């Protein structure tokens, strides 16, 4: 990595940090929450979460059933089927599904939003708004950031719920007699600390997926060729950030 690229890398993260502070400041201000902003946010949630909901829930259910079958079969082979459900909870529900959801949202909406913002910059719409004394941060960016974060949290909760139900059904079938054991494993895995960690990680994923692509899009210039570079840089940074959050969370939990 040459010095210029290193500098650009740091500058990119600097832009993200500046943007994050600006969004946080706007989110904490009451005047940001105008009806117009709420309309944009609602639309964004519709595009990010609602449209993807059915397909993603189906994917989560299938993924869980397959994983549970494999885990139970392998655990039985070692005589450890008592630990199969706990393993599924710890790996699938607490780690893999939130990460998969974040990646899905990043690929589906993050890329789209990043491109949209980059095109706004290229077309000069952002400058025009600024000249009209309208802050594009409040009008365009804040609703998208909040909507993306909310969508991610919502999708994560939904997919994890589906996974919990699918795990029960594929472990015990449609009987209520596994409920006691299931509850016991839930009690073992979902301690208050685990729940708090899960919530924090969801929020961190939401923030990263919402802020990094928009910051990258806003980093584009008037040159049309800058759009792919800006979007690509944003997606790489996002991937890096998601990996970092996951690694940090695992390190805190198990190291």
């Amino acid at each position: 990595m040459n010095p210029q690229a290193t500098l650009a890398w740091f500058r990119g993260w600097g832009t993200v940090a500046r943007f994050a502070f600006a969004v946080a400041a706007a989110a904490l201000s009451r005047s940001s929450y105008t009806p117009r902003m709420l309309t944009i946010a609602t639309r964004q949630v519709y595009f990010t979460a609602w449209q993807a909901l059915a397909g993603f829930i189906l994917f989560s259910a299938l993924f869980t059933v397959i994983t549970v079958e494999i885990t139970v079969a392998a655990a039985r082979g070692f005589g450890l089927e008592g630990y199969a459900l706990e393993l599924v909870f710890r790996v699938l529900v607490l780690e893999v599904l939130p990460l998969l959801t974040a990646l899905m949202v990043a690929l589906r909406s993050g890329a789209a939003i990043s491109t949209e913002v980059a095109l706004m910059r290229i077309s000069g719409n952002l400058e025009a708004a600024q000249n009209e004394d309208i802050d594009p941060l409040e009008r365009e960016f804040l609703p998208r950031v909040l909507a993306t974060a909310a969508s991610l949290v919502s999708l994560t909760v939904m997919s994890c719920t589906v996974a919990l139900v699918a795990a029960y059904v594929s472990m015990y079938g449609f009987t209520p007699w596994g409920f006691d054991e299931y509850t016991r494993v839930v009690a073992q895995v979902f301690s208050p600390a685990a729940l708090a960690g899960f919530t924090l990680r969801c929020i961190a994923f939401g923030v990263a997926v919402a802020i990094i692509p928009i910051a990258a899009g806003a980093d584009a210039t008037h040159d049309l060729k800058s759009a792919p570079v800006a979007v690509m840089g944003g997606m790489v940074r996002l991937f890096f950030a998601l990996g970092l959050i996951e690694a940090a969370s695992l390190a805190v939990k198990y190291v």
Partner: protein
Amino acid sequence: MEREPGFTPVPKNLQFRIGLLIGFTVVIAVGFVAYALYARGVFEATQRLTLISDNVEGVGVGMDMSFSGFPIGRVNRISLADDGRARIEIVVPLKDARWLRSSSIFTLERGIVGSAKIRAFTANLQDPPLPDGAERTVLRGDTSEEIPRMVAMLRGVLENVEHVTSADGSLQASLANVRTMTERLAGRHGVLGAVLGGDDEAKKVVATIERANALLASLGGVSRRLDVVLSKTDQRVYGEGGLMDGTQRAVAQANTILGEVRESLKRLDRVLADAEKISGNAKAASSDLAALRAEVDASLRKVSAILEEINRKWPFERNTDIRLP
């Protein structure tokens, strides 16, 4: 700016749908947290139990304590006490606490695979229930700890077996001893020789037995003589002219003497009457009186001598019945 209308169709009841989605998410999240808390027994009345062990390796917070294979309690906290022993604090829901009695036994087992297991055993369910906050020492069984110890013991045993079965080992020596023993059994003095370890010793024992026989014969003579002595003693004490006879004679003598004394006193009475009649010749009367007194004195002395003699023989002065020694 805003998305161009019509570019991506947006349904009419958009706000309702999004509200539903967000609301559903919140309800599920809150519901799951409540379920997790319920699963952890937050809404349940519980009682505490502290198990004390010298090693809690493999025990983790959240681990179950099982009774008959069913989980009835959960490890809440593990701490190290001031005395260096580990304390495992277990929370037991009240509805499951009825399986634990004051006589229950708790074990901590570690298998080769998997985490440790805490088990409770109750022999008698009629015993008084385990009180809240009870402290019990846990019995520990550790397979992975047992294996090296078992291997060491097994090696020791094998070494001993090898040592025993070697050419100069104790098993060979024992077999040689057994052969010597059987040879002696077949010898002149038989079992005696085998037990005592040689013919000389056996001879000594035979001589000893003969001497003992002689001793017993002379003891028989002694006891016969003793019988004679005893019969003689019997004769001397209770036979004719024996000690008892003498005593009877002494009593008869005493009776005679007392009769004499009575006679003397009668005579004295008469003399005193004469003395009253014959008051004139006082000199003659007084000489008669002196002679009479001397006679009475002599009689009295005899009586007292006899009484002393009786007293000497029967040392019970006022006890009239005679007790035999």
